[in-house]
């Protein structure tokens, strides 16, 4: 009964809240007011039902937290998926199966599906790159798309002016972007947390403005067209073949990224990044050079964005500054956070969901973005650690005891 009353109150509140925007529609030039009274009903009904679900979900979440606090249920207890991941045998098998699916994909599905998949894979690499900066080193970067743009423009311009091929520019783009990361990193090393966020956001916007205005360099807002697709021994490929080819390059790039970031994560440098994220002061007090660690995190994050930027330019064959907006940075950041900060598998899943969801939601194209926004909020509320939370590596060791026994 109490719940019923509460839900009623909530839905009345939302009817009030949405009244001017949902019900009234004025056309000032024709002097017509359109009253859409039915919308009150829908809003009221929807909110009434949703408030039950909401309360139930919140209560469940709280119950879990309480249990965790009183020690009955360990929050860090590996979930079923994580437990499965721990199992070496299962893991190898799963990876093998995944690889087969990935390799077979373009033959099973049509070219369009492959194109979409390429887009998603591009975001996987972007997510993994940003994961280094944000997820591991804890440096909030809201202008990550700038590095993506550096890569894309490197290829577009080098290809346009000097006819350099995709394979030549792929590392070059990565390295240029890396350098850019270091240059950008220097002045903002001293900044903490949210100051960093706004400055990086500013850098992202500055890049776009420069690309738009400096026409002699970047061809301005009209962009660069007819960028060469990746070549394969000079073969001429039709659209399906070249899509498949790009798809495989992307798969290779993703595998490379996963291996490299995976190894970095559990290396001396990766541990330093995480330590930096966890506690800056303790980190430096333990002998870690903060400037070098921060810069390396920036540069490596930027490196992947640059590489995949080259890929993006090659895939789209046309780029202009409009592709590198703040929204892109926000989406990449969301991939990292939704997927699970620091977790490689999580970021991959996050990218797949965030990029594929809007594509397949095309049926509701108008409602796509609003669902996207709502999903972000809900995810954060009910699963803030992301889809798959990060698990640290467990080590096998020989200690003193074993050693002395052996002697």
């Amino acid at each position: 009964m109490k719940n019923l009353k509460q839900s009623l109150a909530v839905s009345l509140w939302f009817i009030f809240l949405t009244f001017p925007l949902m019900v009234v529609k004025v056309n000032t030039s024709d002097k017509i007011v359109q009253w859409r009274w039915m919308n009150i009903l829908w809003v009221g009904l929807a909110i009434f039902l949703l408030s039950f679900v909401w309360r139930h979900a919140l209560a469940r979440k709280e119950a879990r937290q309480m249990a965790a606090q009183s020690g009955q249920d360990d929050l860090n207890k590996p979930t079923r998926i994580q437990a499965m991941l721990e199992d070496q045998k299962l893991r190898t098998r799963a990876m093998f199966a995944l690889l087969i699916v990935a390799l077979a994909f373009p033959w099973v599905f049509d070219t369009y599906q492959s194109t979409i998949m390429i887009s998603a894979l591009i975001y996987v690499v972007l997510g993994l790159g940003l994961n280094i900066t944000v997820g591991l080193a804890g440096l909030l970067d809201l202008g990550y798309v700038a590095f993506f743009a550096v890569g894309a423009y490197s290829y577009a311009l080098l290809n346009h002016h000097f006819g350099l091929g995709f394979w030549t520019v792929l590392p070059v783009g990565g390295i240029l972007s890396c350098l850019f990361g270091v240059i950008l990193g220097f002045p903002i090393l001293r900044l903490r947390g949210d100051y960093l966020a706004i400055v990086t956001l500013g850098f992202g916007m500055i890049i776009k403005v420069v690309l738009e205005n400096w026409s002699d360099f970047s061809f301005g807002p009209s962009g660069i067209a007819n960028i060469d697709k990746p070549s394969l021994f000079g073969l001429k490929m039709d659209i399906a073949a070249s899509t498949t080819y790009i798809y495989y390059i992307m798969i290779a790039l993703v595998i490379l990224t996963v291996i490299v970031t995976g190894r970095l994560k559990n290396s001396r440098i990766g541990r330093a990044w995480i330590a930096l994220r966890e506690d800056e002061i303790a980190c430096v007090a333990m002998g870690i050079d903060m400037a070098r660690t921060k810069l390396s995190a920036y540069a490596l994050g930027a490196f992947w964005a640059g590489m995949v930027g080259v890929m993006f330019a090659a895939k789209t064959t046309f780029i202009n500054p409009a592709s590198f907006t703040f929204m892109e940075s926000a989406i990449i950041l969301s991939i990292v956070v939704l997927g699970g900060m620091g977790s490689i598998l999580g970021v991959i899943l996050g990218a797949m969901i965030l990029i594929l969801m809007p594509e397949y939601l095309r049926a509701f194209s108008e409602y796509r973005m609003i669902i996207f926004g709502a999903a972000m909020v809900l995810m954060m509320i009910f699963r803030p650690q992301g889809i798959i939370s990060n698990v640290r590596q467990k080590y096998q060791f020989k200690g003193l005891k074993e050693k002395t026994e052996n002697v």
Partner: protein
Amino acid sequence: MSDTDKQVLLEVKGLTMDFGGLRAVDSIDLSVSEGEIAALIGPNGAGKTTFFNCVTGIYTPTAGDILLHPKGKPTRRVNGSKPNKVTTLGMARTFQNIRLFPDMTVLENVMIGRHCRTRTGLTGAILRGAAARKEEQEIVEFSYCLLEKVGLDEFANEYSKNLPYGAQRRLEIARAMATEPFLLLLDEPAAGMNPQETTDLDALICRIRDEEQIAILLIEHDMKLVMNISDKIHVMEYGKKIATGTPNEIKDNPKVIEAYLGEEAEA
């Protein structure tokens, strides 16, 4: 114990630290010698932690000299050096309010301490060559041994945030020891520990000094612990040093008693 034959490791002269108009540390002289366990005591707010922060490079002192004399290496003045430099030179610390890396495992926390003593770079981490793998294995084993020494080996793969309080303090000590210091600064290592844990800590600190040849400077409020293990005690009040001496000398020093009267009565 006579200091004459022992080498001085840390020498602080006239250290002063101002925060705005407040003088938190006022021309302190202090030194720690090889094989010594020294304690820095004083009422709350006396400036002990600020002293630590100055010495370890977290704050840059307003005036004074901080000299490190590593064995067999030239003397270094470390005023205003970055904390990581100081640690690399051989002086490591723990924190009053525990500063572990909560989302890393216990073992990894200690492995962080190995950072400045190892050298695998990006390429090594990515390619995982023989040298990198060997070094990594050494890091793991070294760290695990340290965990055994502080009695945390069974928790090696737990997240450090899940450890009980006393264990977290010991983990901080292990982490600091992983940097292979010649001098260890402990900021209230016994805070929040029960009597049994404190007794264990007592033994641990002595073992560190005797077995690892690490000198120790500690801030502590637990007088029993301080009196038990210290070779030398320095007493601070209102930023100034008011006394130095052996435990017995300090116990009878009227200035110290006066400074502590309120505090002791409360405790």
